[in-house]
Structure formats: C-alpha cells, structure tokens
C-alpha cells in the first residue's frame, strides 16, 4: 500500500481542534469532509440546501466534540459518519417534533450506562481496499443498504432482481469484509513466522 493513509491527516486535524481550537485545522477539515457529508445527506434524499445544512450541523458538532474523538475506539471516518448520521436524524426529527432523538438511540457511553465499551477491530485502510475490491453488484447493494432510505424489497424492485439476490449479495459482501479481522490475524502469524 503506497498511498498515504488519509486518516492520519484527519486524526492530526481533530487533535489540533481538540487541544487548541485551531481555526486553520478546522478550515482544512471542513474543506475535505463537508463535501462528503453533503453527498451522504443527498444520497439519502435531502435536497442540496438541506444537505449542506446537515453537513454544517455535523461540522459544528465535530468542532464541539473533537475532544471526545478517540482514535483507538473508532477511525476518523467512522466517527464522522456517526456524527453525520445523528445530525441528519435530528435535523428531520426536530421539524416533525418527534419525541425521540439520536441521543436516545445512541446514548453517550460516557453517561455510565454501558458496562463494556466496544471498539471495532476492523482496520480502516484495509476495509477501504476491500470495499474497492468488491464486485460491482455487491458494492451497489451495500451502498443502497446503507445510504438509501429503502428496504430490501424496495432495493430488489429498483434493481429488478429477486429479493433473495439482494440478501445473498449483501451477505457475500459482509462475509468478505468481516473475514478481514481474521485475515489480519493470519498475516500477523505469517510475518511472525517468517521473522523467526
């Protein structure tokens, strides 16, 4: 892997923001992240101006919560995703005066309720490589499953394939991504045994 890992830069920027409220770091982070968050909200059906507002709400949360980001618990991409997901949910719930908001669904683990904090053991950069390597049909189902406000059967209808095919493509993609953790372990063994 010759490309530099983009998360390294993101982690650096988030640390600058957390430690010294660095405006320059925030500006750079905004330019690189906000267009992605806007794309995400639009994919889920928000019109461009609303999507931009959701991206800004998310970046405001990033500015305020940067100190809570812990690179050992989540990659910056994952952390930024959860913020955008929650801000998008709250953006629409506020308008409909719904009773639940994202804090109810994902209570802050620091509020002491959870007995065990969990972190992902999936390596972000390997995960990205693997997502890029998925066959197009599996990747498409994965994207739709995550980023389109549709059920399995609606996805099947739209892609004009049977429901069972949607489910099996999703399962195949997931199995590939999840074998990752185990493969990493195997690679580690290979490296260790070749050293000795």
């Amino acid at each position: 892997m010759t490309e530099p890992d983009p998360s390294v830069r993101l982690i650096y920027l988030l640390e600058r923001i957390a430690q010294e409220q660095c405006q320059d770091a925030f500006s750079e982070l905004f330019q690189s992240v906000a267009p992605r968050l806007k794309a995400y909200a639009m994919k889920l059906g928000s019109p461009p101006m609303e999507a931009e507002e959701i991206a800004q709400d998310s970046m405001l949360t990033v500015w305020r919560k940067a100190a809570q980001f812990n690179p050992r618990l989540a990659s910056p991409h994952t952390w930024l995703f959860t913020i955008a997901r929650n801000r998008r949910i709250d953006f629409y719930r506020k308008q409909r005066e719904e009773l639940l908001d994202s804090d109810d669904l994902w209570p802050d683990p620091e509020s002491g309720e959870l007995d065990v904090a969990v972190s992902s053991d999936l390596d972000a950069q390997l995960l990205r490589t693997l997502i890029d390597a998925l066959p197009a049909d599996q990747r498409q189902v994965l994207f739709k499953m995550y980023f389109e406000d549709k059920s399995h059967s609606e996805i099947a209808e739209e892609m004009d394939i049977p429901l069972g095919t949607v489910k099996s493509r999703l399962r195949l993609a997931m199995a590939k991504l999840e074998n990752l953790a185990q493969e990493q372990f195997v690679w580690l063994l290979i490296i260790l045994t070749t050293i000795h």
Partner: protein
Amino acid sequence: MATYHPDDDTLISFAAGKLTNPLGLILACHLQSCPQCRQRAVHFEAIAGELLFSLPATQLSSEAWQSMQAKLASKETTPSLDQRKYRSHSLVPAPLQRFAGNQFERVKWTGITRIKSYTLPIADKRFSARLLKIPAGVAVPMHTHAGLELTQVIYGGFSDGQGHYLAGDYVEATPHHTHQPVADKDSDCICLAVQEGPIRMTGPLLKWLNPFLA
C-alpha cells in the same frame, strides 16, 4: 447475557440510521444490554464510515464556509448537542428513560386485566411500541399477529412454547404464528414490544375485544 439477538440486516439498518422510531428504540434497548450486538453494530458503523468516504464528494455552495463561520460564532447551542445524562444502574434502559424515568413504578400503566401496558407515543405507519408488565406466572391471551412482533425482555422472563426468554433477549415472532407467552413463576416480566399492524386475539372469549386491544 442474551441468547436471542437481532439479525445482521437489522443491525446494519440500525447502524445506518435507517430504522424508524419503534424499531430504532427496541434495537437501542437491546444494544444497551448486549455487548455482543454492540460490537457487531460498531463493525457495521466502521463499514459505513469507509463507504461514506468512498462516495464522490458534492460541491458546497459558495457561501458554505461563511455560514459555517457564522454558526461557529453564534453562542446558541442546539439542544441535542447538550448530551443528556442517563441514570446508570437503573432497571430502565437509557433509551426508555425519556418515557419511564428511572423507575418502572412511575410508568402510567393501564389495563383492565392483570397484564398492564403503556403505549409509547412514537408509533409510525407500520409499527407501534408499548411496555408490557406481566405478573409472575400469568399468561398473555392466545393471539396471532398480522405482522411481525418483536419483544425485548427487560426484566424477568417468559416462555411461549418455542423458547424460554430472559432479560436481554430480543425475540422475533413471525406473522400468522399463534402463541401464548407465559411469564416465569419467580418474578414479574417487563418487556418492550413492537408490533406491526393489529394483533388478533384467538381465544374464544377475547375475539370481541379485538378492536380495543391494538
């Protein structure tokens, strides 16, 4: 530790933020008590994060950075940014504390039989959610569902002929399957139940009650 869990598709939808209120709430409650599913949900969030950053970026409007700075400068805080504090060591899972406080005794239970219920004000077009309190040893009347029924056991346990479920378990009953849950003899059972469409009572005397029980 829970024995019965939601399937991966449901966990993915939850991690993606796609579930509507009743389903989102029951998943949130399960995850509070199940480190195993919490771990899976975190995996699915990790995948979501990488997928998001592989989407092609959308250009921002020309005034985006300016209005961002205005937001930063304004002192007003969005309510949702002030993290609510939840009571830990409460029987009531954090996601339910908005409705039940920190004690189930404070819930405004209703019901003419010994089984008490409280309908949460979060129903959507397909699903409704309610808390159920079944006294020790008592059976819920025999019934069939027009749709899915999901139950998260919060306290105590129950059996329904298919299995025995304890606190932490997430139970999925499929449509058109008639069952009769019975609370364990040693304690009351408190559950969060999410139902799709109306329920049909099949017991001889209860059929006429149907319109009132949904």
